[in-house]
């Protein structure tokens, strides 16, 4: 996959995040499209077959930087908060794919998305508490994070299995 294409899709997603995502709320939660995209790319990178590389690890990490930057640009949070949260989430996928989940199936995908979303939120909340101080969400944090996990699982599953259908692969094993 050309890096240029990945960057184009990322920037388009950032624009859609600010333009369309606010109107796709379910129980008050909007999908975090940039995070979902980067998470899908991460799962693809770490589990794609060796003979059919769609995205290299270098391209993935460049995408993480650009995704974080574009998310930070549109957010009212200080610069770097979302970038660092993305980095932590993708690193967790990298670690778990290399040390725990050798093969990818529906359940491992579900667990990876859950772990990545938790890491993302933990790092973001930690940064907000550390630097801004006050953290209020207006509703229970658990409820908000739970909805986000559900949203992410559904969308990542759709994207990942869509790619699988297009490129026709059935076996995904960890590339570590």
């Amino acid at each position, binding site marked *: 996959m050309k890096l240029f294409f990945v960057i184009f899709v990322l*920037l388009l997603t*950032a*624009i*859609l*995040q*600010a*333009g*369309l*995502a*606010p*109107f796709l*709320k379910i129980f*008050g*939660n*909007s999908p*975090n499209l940039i995070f979902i995209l980067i998470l899908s790319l991460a799962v693809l990178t770490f589990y794609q077959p060796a003979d059919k590389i769609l995205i290299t*690890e*270098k391209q*993935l*990490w460049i995408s*993480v*930087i650009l995704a*974080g*930057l*574009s*998310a930070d*640009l*549109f*957010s*009212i*949070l200080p*610069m*770097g908060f*979302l*970038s*660092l949260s993305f*980095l932590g989430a*993708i*690193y967790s996928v*990298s670690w778990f794919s290399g040390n725990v989940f050798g093969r990818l199936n529906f359940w491992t995908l579900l667990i990876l998305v859950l772990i990545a979303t938790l890491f993302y*939120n933990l790092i*973001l*909340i930690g940064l*907000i508490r550390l630097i*801004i101080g*006050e*953290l*209020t*969400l*207006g*509703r229970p944090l658990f409820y*908000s994070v739970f909805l*986000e996990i559900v949203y992410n699982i559904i969308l990542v599953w759709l994207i990942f299995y869509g790619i699988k259908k297009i490129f026709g692969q059935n076996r995904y094993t960890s590339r570590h």
Partner: protein
Amino acid sequence: MKKLIRKPAVLTLFIIIGLIFLNNYGLLEKPKEIFFRLASSFQKTAYRSGLWLNDFIGLLKHQERLNEENIYFLEENQKLEGIIVELKEAERENKFLRQQLNLEEKEPSRLILAEVIGQNSVNFGQGLLINKGRKDGLEEGMAVIAVGNRLVGRITRVFDSSAQVFLITHPNSRINILIQETEVKGIVKGESDSGLIIDWLDQKEEIKTGQTVVTSGLDGFFQKGLLIGWVEEVIVNQSQVFKKAKVKSAADFKRIERVFVIDSRL
């Protein structure tokens, strides 16, 4: 150390930290300006499409109520026309009395019209993106309102030709308010999904549903008299010192297309 830096995640971390430092010294302003300038027309199209989709789904969901709502709004409109006539008369009288008492006339604030081109709705980072910026006279801290003096938020970040608005419904938002009918003072804070709540209301204060909530001007961020909303529900807990009240926001954040930025530098 070299081995550690070669790890992609660590290298990415250093690059991000580097970019944060560059941003703190203002060295990323130009790339940000360029990005927003290039993205703003696509941004506007995406946002307009979202608004259209939202309206279309709303139309399908509430089709049956359309006729009733239409009649209600026609009646409301007629009532409001009557109120406008009375207010114009009051304004005329006010002007005359000010002249008689040699009081200085309040200078009207300059309003800068801006279009909303995006909305960030992800946890902790909610805000609006508008298509006016530094070159249009915007500065950080300026109040943003919708039609009818309805408070939307304030400018937090300004670029050359766009700006970010911190919404009053953001959970970290705190505004000093006044209940217009009783002059009771309080603090309104944001809850997610267009919700607002007034806190620190004395238990003895008379608060009723339907009362109008406006800015008091005491916090220095917003001028006095900007409409925040109406009391929707009073939450009383006798075991607590203060009571709370839920407020229905006057500005419709799900349909917001155009805003005015109050240029208070005059």
